[in-house]
């Protein structure tokens, strides 16, 4: 009887210990999950705020200052490699494209920009193509007007002697046509 009582107690205690162990594991997992969520929340928020700037976005708008070609074309130049590494580091710091370009200008001056700023001599890069296009359009327009004006004059001034059929042949052709009159 006593042994039975002892066995029952032992069994109850074991169940209690097992329940306690399960509870503490569950609590530990829950705590860990909460901690992870709290820790990753600012990182996720930062990632959401981080602009999606890529190396390719910036590379074609800046120059390799030593080679004098856009950075995306300068594959082997050591200076280009350093410039690229600088851009990648700034992308990792969540900088926008314009911020990265400004940082490059701070380091290398405005010559690093593939498109110069619209002031001074650099203004020519924007004005010259537009002016060139307008002049070309005006020239084409003027030439078209002149060509259209000349066409009727030329037709009117064409001499009759320019007819490809000789006078004798023309008479023969006329006679033939009358003979085969349908």
């Amino acid at each position: 009887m006593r042994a039975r009582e002892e066995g029952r107690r032992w069994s109850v205690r074991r169940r209690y210990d097992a329940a306690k162990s399960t509870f503490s594991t569950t609590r530990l997992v829950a705590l860990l999950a909460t901690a992870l969520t709290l820790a990753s929340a600012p990182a996720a928020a930062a990632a959401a705020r981080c602009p999606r700037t890529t190396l390719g976005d910036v590379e074609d708008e800046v120059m390799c200052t030593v080679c004098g070609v856009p950075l995306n074309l300068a594959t082997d130049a050591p200076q280009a490699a350093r410039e690229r590494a600088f851009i990648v580091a700034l992308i990792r710091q969540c900088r926008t494209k314009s911020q990265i370009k400004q940082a490059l200008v701070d380091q290398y001056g405005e010559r690093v920009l593939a498109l110069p700023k619209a002031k001074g001599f650099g203004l020519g890069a924007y004005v010259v193509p537009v002016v060139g296009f307008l002049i070309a359009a005006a020239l084409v327009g003027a030439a078209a007007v002149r060509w259209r004006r000349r066409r009727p004059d030329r037709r009117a001034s064409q001499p009759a002697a320019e007819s490809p059929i000789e006078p004798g042949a023309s008479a023969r052709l006329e006679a033939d046509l009358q003979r085969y009159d349908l």
Partner: protein
Amino acid sequence: MKRVLKPVPLAAIASTAALVALLAYGVVQNEPNRSIDEAVASGQRPNAPALELPRLDAPGRLSLASLRGRVVVLNFWASWCIPCRQESPLLERWQHRIAAAGGTILGVDVLDLTTDARAFVHRYRLTYPMVRDGPGRRLAAFGVLGYPETLLIDRRGHVAATNRGPVTESYLQRALLPLLREHA
């Protein structure tokens, strides 16, 4: 009065001439200055172009004019330039050698990142004065096309010699030591 040219060909000629002039201006602007080398080759010592740049190794600015009375080894370099890595320790040794005789090396870091340049100075333990020309604005005035390039400037501020490439021990002995013996 008879009109020599009609408006359309006149406009075409004028716009072509304007484009050619613009192109020529751009080419001339970017053309490096060869006059220093030509003058030195003909035995003259032209005035060194003005140079005043922010210091890389300390706050403030440093000008070439402030070093008048000393022989200046003006060395254009960049941290990404591979020959500069071999040349810098040699220049550092010469800095210790010429300082007492009234000479100095002046490093001009060009087309470089500030952090890279400072890391280079730290790595090679360079103690001679350094200035920084990130945009390379003064390169054309000194006729610099590659890296490294060195100009030797006498005590009166005249360019006495140019070396378009890395300097060597024998070059410095041959070209720099006689300059140090000259008086201002």
